[in-house]
């Protein structure tokens, strides 16, 4: 199983190496839990049955004076465990962003791009982001964007609205967009994008109140019908936990409690992520032959 959405914000090895990382975790990402050794991260994966996890940094130095993990830090962590899949982050607000991304993928061998319009304070649908999408499309990597509500202090809710992405999704049709958090609360908008555009994927890392089980039950059976997940979107959803905002084990358990077939769960927990990570639009689109 693959967790497509984790953050390295509580990994102690990063704080030991870079004291500014503590401020990034506490004041920018805004999380209060104790820092833990990387070993805890891997054990959390173990108890959840997760074999590999995507680690996401956020290049938000321009907007927040500090990055929430740098590409180089992600590379260092990934070097410690083959179970970690490193994504890059670049700031669309700086002119070097496309070149920064190319270096992160070609030189540092990171495997995807993470953007957070709320934390990074840019318009995900605006021209400033286009050069980055163009570079990502050329590099044949997926881009995972924070969509939906962001808890980050000082961030604007509107930055996370999924429909802001529609023009980019249309313009870069060979780039696979992963809309994180199911864009909650704009779930129907995110679903509509995924239904209309085959290059749109959704990750399950949505949890804003109640327990994971209760929240998943609400979103996936009442906010949208579960049949929509099983019959229409099964090839475009990837499991994401948003660890450490929530423990991976709880999100896996919540997903497994939904009335979904094993085949559908397998797609969400493994196959769709594998396709996205297989470097290339064609690989990710291979599910289209199912129809």
């Amino acid at each position, binding site marked *: 199983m693959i967790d497509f959405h984790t953050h390295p914000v509580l990994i102690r090895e990063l704080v030991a190496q870079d004291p500014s990382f503590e401020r990034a975790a506490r004041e920018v990402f805004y999380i209060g839990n104790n820092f833990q*050794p990387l070993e805890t991260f891997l054990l959390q994966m173990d108890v959840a049955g997760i074999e590999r996890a995507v680690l996401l940094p956020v290049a938000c130095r321009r907007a927040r004076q500090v990055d929430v993990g740098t590409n180089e830090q992600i590379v260092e962590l990934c070097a410690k465990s083959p179970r970690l899949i490193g994504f890059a982050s670049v700031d669309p607000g700086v002119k070097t962003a496309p070149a920064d991304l190319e270096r992160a993928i070609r030189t540092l061998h990171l495997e995807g791009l993470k953007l957070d319009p709320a934390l990074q304070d840019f318009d995900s649908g605006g021209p400033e982001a286009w050069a980055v999408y163009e570079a990502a499309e050329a590099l044949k990597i997926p881009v995972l964007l924070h969509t939906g509500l962001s808890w980050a202090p000082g961030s604007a809710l509107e930055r996370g609205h999924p429909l802001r992405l529609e023009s980019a999704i249309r313009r870069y049709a060979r780039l696979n967009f992963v809309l994180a958090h199911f864009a909650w609360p704009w779930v129907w908008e995110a679903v509509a994008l995924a239904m209309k555009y085959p290059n749109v994927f959704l990750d399950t890392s949505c*949890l804003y109140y*109640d327990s*994971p089980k209760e929240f998943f039950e609400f979103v996936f059976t009442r906010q949208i019908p579960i049949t929509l997940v099983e019959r229409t979107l099964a090839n475009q959803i990837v499991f994401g936990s948003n660890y450490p905002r929530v423990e991976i084990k709880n999100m896996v358990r919540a997903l497994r409690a939904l009335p979904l077939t094993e085949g559908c769960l397998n797609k969400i927990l493994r196959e769709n992520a594998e396709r996205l990570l297989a470097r290339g639009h064609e690989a990710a689109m291979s599910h289209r032959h199912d129809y």
Partner: protein
Amino acid sequence: MIIKLERLKIQSRRSEEAINITALVEEAIAQSGVQNGLVHVMTTHTSSGLVVTEGIPCLEQDILTHLARLFPESENYHHRRYLDYDGRLGFNADAHLKSVVGGISCSFPIENGKMVRGSRQTIYFMEYDGPLERTCLIQILGE
């Protein structure tokens, strides 16, 4: 009078786990140089605990099983909400309640440099929401 405080790091490896720390407490006493006094052990976390019981696997299992029966994960807890001071969701009320009921500390006398305990008494660090690296305090007072 000697007063020593040791911070013991414990890496739990499962969601719930009973970890025997008796030997670690005895070692801390030996290293403190205290011959006669008191040792106090406590966890610094609210979703873990400390218990003293007979050191056998069946009891470890029974404690965890019956605390889970008392505080099922599926219960309707007020704690299930976004904790704005913490940047996280609070949905581990069951772990907190196990900690409250099971206790978070224990004390034993020290005599002639050794912890005085019943032959079957074993000190367990109780993980209720792991795996996590945890901190246990061992304070030794005496002379």
